[in-house]
């Protein structure tokens, strides 16, 4: 316990980085995922194929492989950026694929009648998607999106392997000196659990508020 108290500033700074990476990648993934879903359901075959390819590639490659590629292989091709930036970009791109899949399942729940009615009212494709389909789709998949965000939280811990000083990395450094892994890593685990609970309960509350009663 004293080990935790002594290393308080380090652990807090690590937690700050975790939350920063989590929030930034979450926002990015939600935006990018929505765009990919829109491409996936658009009438343009090239866009549909591109979105399909994007999702299939990214859900089938391990995140660690992507992180190692981005941090250690891209600089040889000339693309070097600060570690935190690289980690956020990779997490955004990776989780956007899962967001896209979740949203696509939501779009499938919107009945055909809605699209036909929108067309009958003279909406363009963009208006149909923006005003009719995506709002309804998003409101049905709040809980799955919450799960994707929890997975994103756990994946921020993986960025420790490529040098980002977030909570897991900071905990590791403290343990290196103290050599008391059970209380130290246990405490870090509890913090992650608390963050995941916040996301999960938040998603539950949002879902109750925006649920569509048919």
């Amino acid at each position: 316990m004293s080990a935790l108290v002594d290393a308080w500033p380090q652990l807090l700074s690590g937690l700050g980085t975790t939350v920063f990476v989590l929030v930034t990648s979450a926002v990015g993934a939600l935006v990018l995922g929505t765009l990919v879903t829109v491409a996936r359901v658009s009438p343009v075959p090239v866009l549909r194929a591109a979105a399909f390819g994007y999702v299939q590639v990214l859900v089938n490659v391990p995140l660690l492989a992507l992180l190692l590629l981005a941090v250690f292989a891209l600089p040889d091709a000339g693309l070097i950026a600060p570690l935190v930036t690289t980690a956020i970009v990779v997490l955004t791109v990776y989780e956007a694929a899962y967001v896209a899949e979740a949203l696509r399942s939501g779009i499938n729940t919107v009945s055909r009648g809605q699209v036909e009615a929108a067309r009958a009212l003279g909406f363009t494709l963009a208006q149909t998607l923006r005003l009719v389909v995506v709002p309804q789709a998003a409101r049905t998949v709040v809980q799955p999106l919450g799960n994707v965000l929890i997975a994103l939280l756990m994946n921020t811990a993986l960025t420790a392997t490529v040098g980002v000083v977030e909570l897991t990395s900071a905990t590791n450094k403290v343990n290196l000196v103290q050599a008391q892994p059970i209380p130290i890593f246990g405490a870090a685990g509890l913090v992650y659990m608390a963050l995941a609970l916040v996301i999960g309960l938040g998603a539950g509350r949002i879902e109750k508020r925006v649920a569509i009663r048919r």
Partner: protein
Amino acid sequence: MSRTLRRRSTIAASLALVASLALSACGGSDSGSSAVPPSAGGGGDDALQEVYDNAPVAEAAALLSDSTMAAIRERGVLRVAAALDAPLLSQQDPSNPDDIQGFDIDLAKMLAIYIIGEPNIEVVPPASETREALLTNGTVDVVFNTYTITEERAEQISFAGPYFVSGLAVAVAADNEDIAGIDDLGGRTVIVGANTPAVTAVPEQQPTAEVVSFATDPQCVQALTQGRGDAYVQDYTLLAADAESNDGIKVVGQPFTEEAYGIGLPPNDPDFKDFVNDWLEQIYADGSWAAVFDATLGTVGDGSTPEPPAIGSVPGS
């Protein structure tokens, strides 16, 4: 599908599943490998073979009944926690998984010869955080893993030795002329290994340096050559091996700390610790330790062989 055809295809599918599980299980168990001494493949290997042939073997009286060493002899194999990817210290040959060479692993083989008579070892590669756990729960008998002796660690496990004294040194990109040692690292970005003593040593010496850590040594070297940091602080022996194989980096200055390596032993076992320390005294005295050093770490130094350190000279050992 007819019932017979369905039954046959179910049997075929389940056989295929069992076969693939069995094969994957075979593939997955190569983390524990029993090493044989390297066969003649160069001067260094011949010299080592001679060392193994002449390695001391414990007298039967030294193996007290009901002791750890008697149990190891009974079992016929020494379980060692050692790396598989540390050049000159414990490096597995990728084309021959049974062949692991290096300073740490050769000493482990000699300890196995001392206890059992044959260099039968089973290697479990540890992560730095798990070495204490592996010893306390009995998964391994000894740890030979450039295991620095610290008092915090000595509270949980025992150390024999020290068997080698090294230190942290600084490496920079080969074309860097600005940095000549640890004193020039103020305000710079310094790369360190994620679970090494450098994590605490660099901020102690240079509080203004920004420290970036990566998981493995190859990743740190890559980061240094790609320009993610101005310098890489790591153990002198590791840096020397890296500089030897990679022209893009060079070691500058002398080691600025003293890191004593010890053999990790299970806690609360003074008989085993005395036994291993006796063995260390023997190989220091008869020149085997020096021969192993010359064949491994000595190949990248300036040719001189250091004196073996005094056993018990470091707090915690």
